């Protein structure tokens, strides 16, 4: 008899096989625990300059101080507002474009050659232009955040639209749907879950542009706080800022995941 153990593998090492929630939690904690511990040891060991590498606890302390005594909450709200306004505007512009360009060759071939190349221009390269056109006010920051995501948003939403099953559209037509109904009730509705996925992923990109938008000529916002901290060599405060952005990004991601899960039960993972 051959021992069956020859084919038994440690859970998590079989091809494409998921792991239970306990394993998930445990591995996640293991990674974070090791990371934080390593960081802490590095910072207290004296190998690194503690002024440039404060320990995780000091970062937490700085964060508590920022929120408690220095009114950092207001900065966070300002940043949040910037993200919501600029990203909201980008979605409002990109959604109809992505829908029409994905569904019809005419708008696609008219607009795609124009929009596509802009994806390769880094948004920060627009900063000097925006400063001249819009000054140093709020509009300039919103515009930069908008430009950071709009091109990709349009092309990705277009791809989502294109991936809609042609059979569904044809069924709708044989059931009497006119072009408008087929576009809105079938193409749009069918692509909606994938639109939400794209929007979630691009929202993460939008967060990455926040600091760039708030570095230049800003007096408020998370990025502005971090630039002030840099002048005073307060690395703990800079790190606290990074941490806050990370957490906000994760929370917004989780909210959109929740929307996706709750609104489209038929399109959850593994359902066909």
């Amino acid at each position, binding site marked *: 008899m051959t021992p069956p153990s020859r084919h038994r593998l440690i859970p998590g090492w079989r091809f494409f096989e998921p792991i239970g929630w306990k394993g998930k939690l445990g591995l996640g904690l293991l990674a974070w625990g090791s990371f934080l511990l390593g960081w802490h040891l590095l910072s207290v060991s004296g190998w690194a300059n503690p002024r440039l590498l404060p320990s995780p606890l000091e970062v937490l302390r700085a964060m508590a101080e920022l929120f408690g005594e220095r009114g950092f909450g207001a900065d966070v709200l300002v940043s949040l507002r910037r993200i919501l306004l600029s990203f909201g505007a980008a979605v409002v512009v990109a959604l109809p474009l992505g829908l029409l360009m994905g569904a019809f060759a005419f708008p696609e071939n008219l607009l795609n050659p124009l929009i596509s190349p802009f994806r390769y221009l880094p948004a920060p390269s627009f900063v000097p232009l925006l400063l001249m056109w819009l000054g140093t006010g709020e509009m300039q920051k919103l515009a930069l955040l908008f430009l950071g995501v709009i091109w990709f948003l349009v092309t990705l939403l277009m791809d989502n639209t294109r991936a809609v099953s042609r059979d569904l559209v044809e*069924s*709708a*037509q*044989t*059931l009497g*749907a006119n072009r408008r109904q087929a576009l809105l009730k079938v193409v749009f509705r069918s692509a909606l879950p994938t639109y939400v996925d794209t929007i979630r992923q691009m929202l993460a990109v939008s967060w990455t542009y926040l600091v760039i938008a708030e570095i230049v000529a800003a007096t408020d916002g998370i990025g502005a706080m971090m630039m002030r901290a840099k002048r005073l060599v307060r690395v703990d405060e800079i790190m606290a800022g990074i941490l806050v952005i990370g957490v906000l990004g994760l929370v917004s991601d989780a909210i959109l995941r929740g929307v996706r899960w709750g609104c489209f039960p038929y399109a959850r993972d593994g359902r066909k």
Partner: protein
Amino acid sequence: MTAVATLPDYREQSPAVAERFRKLKQRPVVLSVRGLGKTFGSTEGTVTALQGLDFDVYRREFMCVIGQSGCGKSTLIRILSGLEQPTSGELLLDGKVVHGPGPDRGMVFQSYTLFPWLTVKQNVMFGPKMAGRTGTAVEQEARQWIEMVGLSDFENSYPFQLSGGMKQRVAIARALANQPRILLMDEPFGALDAQTRAQMQEYLLQIWKNIDITILFITHDLDEAVFLADRILVLKAKPGRIDEIIEVPVPRPRSLDQAIDPEYLATKHRINELIHPREQRGGGGVEIPRMTMAGDEVE
């Protein structure tokens, strides 16, 4: 002498069968196809998928279309449904020329095409809704169609909760909810296992019997065609054209037991001859080198 040689020719109709088809052809024509042709053009050249098709489908008739893969069956039904435009000829529904898709011709596809975001009931109500009809009357009607296909317990289920056979039954109910003049079906049971398929065929005959509907049904399964059809349109490939229109002599109501009746076998044999000509049988003429050892022979 093989069993095949003793089969009657299906064309030697008994008086009863002849009378049945004489009556069928006295009914009004629902769908009339006149000189229909379709050529696909592309950069690699042109393909003539269909050429000079002429036939009529009579009211309440169940017509099957059969033919080899690639002979143009799907192209034909897509033109009939209006999803594809013919390059020549025309299409008359109740004597009037039709262009483009419309609710007067229902279509059931081989692939599952229920709207995944709608429940069974909402799927069935889709057609009436597109026509601007809403309210409890429409909902009541939808329930009736769902009951007809035996899915009352699932009216609030989503398509992903249904088996393949159930999905196709909903697709049939959804097409019928528009009360079309003709129901077009392109290998609707092609993706189902043999047992579900047989069940669905019986279901479909029940539905057809009970409501005022004409059906044009595409298949490449000989048994399915003979079991379902009044007449079978056999297509020849390259270019697709009509080979023969077979009047199926098997009496109704049909049952699976008839599959060994001489007239059933004769009809099936005739289609088989038409779509798999003798010269094309037996490995397709490919010589395969022998790679087994002596003493390993099978017959």
